[in-house]
């Protein structure tokens, strides 16, 4: 097997991507927990921890640049490295979503309001499950699994719509809660975006193996945050 | 030739003239080259022409006087009787001692009677061309001029010629002593010139820094290569024969009667003569060894001599050997220096050591050529053929050697 150095470096980078992924998963999971427990202190922790995620992302990016500069990867190796660059950006944004959720917890403070926490948790579980499987499909270059994951986004979207209409009804019922519920809308929006970004990761996985870039879910791509 | 014919008429005629000139000169150039080949052919033919041909033989004693029936029909006993009657008793005993008469075959005895009693001698000889074209006239003239003689075809180059030693009668003379002399000289020449020449070449190519003394050595060798061979003869005469005669004559071993005119002097002189050629050839062979081979060796921590001995010399060897053999062929044919260091053509004893007096093949040729009698020209031609065959086989050997070594290396 020639090009051992490059092979080793890519393997190392993939490990790093998994590590970054699990950091994001943890952060999202923790963020939802702070909302459930209304724990402002823990929320601040999640908020601060986002910095490590960002740093990790830049470390990986730097390593990729060095690898490209020194190893001149070609074909699949090059696509993998380009995909990793894309994926770590996605992961970093997902980290930002977790940070956003923790920020909502902090902003809500002690305010009294009905939180559809069960549905939110369910949304998180669905999204994180997708992320987890998408990342392992990516690392294993498993295009078949990766191409099936985007379909699960529908369930997330359904939950989002459900929670959305529920919260809007609450707002109409009690206009004093408008501000708080507006914050909660942010939370579900973030979770919905997280699932969308998982779709991008899956697209990259297919790209590595086939060399073709294709849209898997056109649903709300153009939507702004 | 006519690729330009579509050009304008005026330049066309001009062009035709140019092409005509070109053709004429082409023929001249070609003829010059052909002339060289024709000359070589003439050279060889003219030698062959003299080495073979009809001779008129006259018997000292006519066979009819010895016996009434042809010798071939006589019995062994009768032949022995004839020998006993016609030979001196000493001669008879000598022959008997070589091999008892009783043990000889009849045919052998017939030959013996012819050689010892009938003793045919050459009284007239003809060149090959004349022999073939005017055979009948020769026959007629010989019959008229030598009524007792008879005409036969004779090859002056024959096995006896090679194995006999020098004699003052052409038909009994041979080149054995001369061949031995040449071989002894070459042996000394090679033993001295090869190591010295290769050594000098190694020194100049591998060791010599480009300083004054080494430049002088190099220039000096190049100049020596052009010095006429007779100058080397003078040098050999002055130094080896005269100056060091005590050593080259074997005087220091107590056998100094030959003075310095010995094989050793001749060999040393020849060695000096071929040394520059040998060095230049060896230098070229060494220079042709790729630098990468040397670097590989030095890179492993080899010393200079290890590099030269294990890598440079083996790679250069085919070239060095070829060059050496070419130099040797030159030495074998050289005559002038041998004349100066005292080769003598009247030697009929084979050389026994390096302190022997000597003759050599080219010396013998020279000597015979300058004799007025035709028969000596004939044996000179025969000797030339021997010399040329020797040179050709040596060159063939060089080619074989080169091929063999080249194969081993690649």
């Amino acid at each position, binding site marked *: 097997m020639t090009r051992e150095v490059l092979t080793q470096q890519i393997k190392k980078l993939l490990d790093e991507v998994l590590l970054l992924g699990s950091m994001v998963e943890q952060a999202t999971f923790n963020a939802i927990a702070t909302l459930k427990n209304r724990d402002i202190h823990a929320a601040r922790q999640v908020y601060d921890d986002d910095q490590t995620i960002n740093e990790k992302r830049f470390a990986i990016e730097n390593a990729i640049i060095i690898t490209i500069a020194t190893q001149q990867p070609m074909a699949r190796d090059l696509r993998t490295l380009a995909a990793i660059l894309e994926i770590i950006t996605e992961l970093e944004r997902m980290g930002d979503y977790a940070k956003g959720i923790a920020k909502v917890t902090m902003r809500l403070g002690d305010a009294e309001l009905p939180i559809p926490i069960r549905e939110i948790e369910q949304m998180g579980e669905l999204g994180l499950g997708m992320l987890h499987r998408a990342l392992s499909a990516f690392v294993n270059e498993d295009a078949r699994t990766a191409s099936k994951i985007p379909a699960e986004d529908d369930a997330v979207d359904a939950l989002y719509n459900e929670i959305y209409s529920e919260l809007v009804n609450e707002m109409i019922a009690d206009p004093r809660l408008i501000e708080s519920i507006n914050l909660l809308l942010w939370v579900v929006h973030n979770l919905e975006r997280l699932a969308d970004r998982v779709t991008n990761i899956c697209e990259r996985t297919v790209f590595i193996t086939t060399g073709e870039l294709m849209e898997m879910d056109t649903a709300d791509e153009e939507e702004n945050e | 030739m006519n690729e330009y014919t579509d050009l304008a008429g005026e330049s066309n005629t001009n062009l035709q003239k140019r092409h005509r000139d070109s053709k004429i000169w082409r023929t001249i150039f070609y003829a010059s080259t052909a002339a060289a080949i024709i*000359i070589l052919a003439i050279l060889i033919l003219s030698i062959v022409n003299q080495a073979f041909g009809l001779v008129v033989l006259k018997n000292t004693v006519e066979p009819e006087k010895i016996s009434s029936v042809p010798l071939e029909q006589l019995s062994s006993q009768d032949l022995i009787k004839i020998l006993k009657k016609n030979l001196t008793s000493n001669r008879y005993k000598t022959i008997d001692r070589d091999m008892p008469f009783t043990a000889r075959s009849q045919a052998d005895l017939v030959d013996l009677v012819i050689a010892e009693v009938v003793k045919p001698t050459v009284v007239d000889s003809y060149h090959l061309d004349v022999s073939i074209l005017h055979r009948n006239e020769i026959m007629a003239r010989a019959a008229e001029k030598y009524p007792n003689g008879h005409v036969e075809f004779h090859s002056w180059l024959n096995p006896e010629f090679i194995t006999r030693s020098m004699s003052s009668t052409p038909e009994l003379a041979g080149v054995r002593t001369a061949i031995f002399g040449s071989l002894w000289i070459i042996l000394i020449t090679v033993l001295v010139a090869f190591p010295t020449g290769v050594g000098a070449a190694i020194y100049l190519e591998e060791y010599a820094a480009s300083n004054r003394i080494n430049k002088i050595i190099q220039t000096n060798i190049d100049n020596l290569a052009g010095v*006429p061979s007779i100058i080397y003869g*003078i040098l050999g005469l002055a130094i080896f024969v005269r100056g060091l005669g005590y050593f080259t004559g074997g005087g220091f071993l107590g056998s100094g009667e030959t003075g310095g005119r010995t094989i050793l002097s001749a060999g040393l002189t020849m060695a000096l003569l071929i040394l520059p050629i040998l060095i230049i050839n060896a230098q070229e062979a060494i220079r042709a060894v790729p630098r990468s081979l040397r670097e590989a060796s030095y890179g492993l921590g080899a010393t200079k001599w290890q590099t030269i001995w294990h890598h440079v010399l083996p790679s250069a060897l085919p070239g060095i050997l070829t060059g050496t053999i070419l130099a040797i062929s030159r030495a074998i044919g050289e005559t002038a220096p041998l004349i*100066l260091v005292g080769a003598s053509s009247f030697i009929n004893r084979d050389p026994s050591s390096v302190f022997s007096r000597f003759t050599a093949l080219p010396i013998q040729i020279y000597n015979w050529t300058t004799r007025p009698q035709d028969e000596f020209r004939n044996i000179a031609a025969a000797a030339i053929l021997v010399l040329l065959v020797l040179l050709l086989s040596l060159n063939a050997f060089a080619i074989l050697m080169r091929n063999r070594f080249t194969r081993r290396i690649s």
Partner: protein
Amino acid sequence: MREQIMNHTLSTVQIKPASRVPEFLRKKKRWNEILIQGFLFFCGFVSILTTIGIVFELGKESLLFFANPDVSLLEFFTNTRWQPSIGEFGILPLATSTLLTTLIAMIVALPVGLSAAIFLSEYASSKARSVLKPILEILAGVPTVVYGYFALTFMTPVLRGIFGEQNVEIYNTLSAGLVMGIMILPLVSSMSEDALTAVPRSLREAAYGLGSTRLETAVQIVVPAALSGIIAAFIIAISRAIGETMIVAIAAGSGSNFTFNPFKAAETMTGYIARISGGDVGYDTPDYNSIFAIGLVLFLVTLGLNILSRRLSAKYREVYE
């Protein structure tokens, strides 16, 4: 492995306690290498000794020759008679016959040799070359004594047949000169061919590209470009002819003769040396010493020509290599 090296070092080098250089780097005294280098230098130096020997012996004996009261330097170069037995020591008759044979040889060798070289380098196909060159090499490898034989037994009878037996002596400089020309021909052609082939291909192509014929290219472009090499070949050929001994010793005749008639016998310098030394000449006689004096002249002339030739050939090498 390293231990072996170190052991070796220990056994061959005296350890200087003051030396800072660690053992594995320290200079070894390799006596065998030094001895070998000494021997090799000696081999190279043998050539110097040879030259010194030549110059010394020729010089010494020549001095003895000129020390003879019968000989004067002026006479040596102006007297037209060379008869040592009666005290006539003028090199001119020997020199003129040498020049005569050389001149005749050059008339044969130079044009024919150059033409053959042009043919081989400019016209001949590689197949023809591979046949012709070895033949020329064989011609070059024939011993000179054989050429001498050829001159006497073939060339002379032919010349006498053409010009008449009463006009051409049995020994004559024409026959010797012509055969000498044949002998030198391969040298001229191979050296000239080397010079011609050294002319870069691009030069020829440029000439062809301008529409010149093969002849015009060869004669007007290639030959001038190779001129210094060709002249070097000519000069070497002259030097070789002057030094050639056996042909003239056999075919040119013995006994000095101040003549420019190529049909007459005349002894050359080399022929004289060969004849005198062929007999048992006594040491320290005027005859013996005279061969050194003539040898010295011969040596200086040929050396001068060789040096000139090498200068010229170095010049063309410089241009194209």
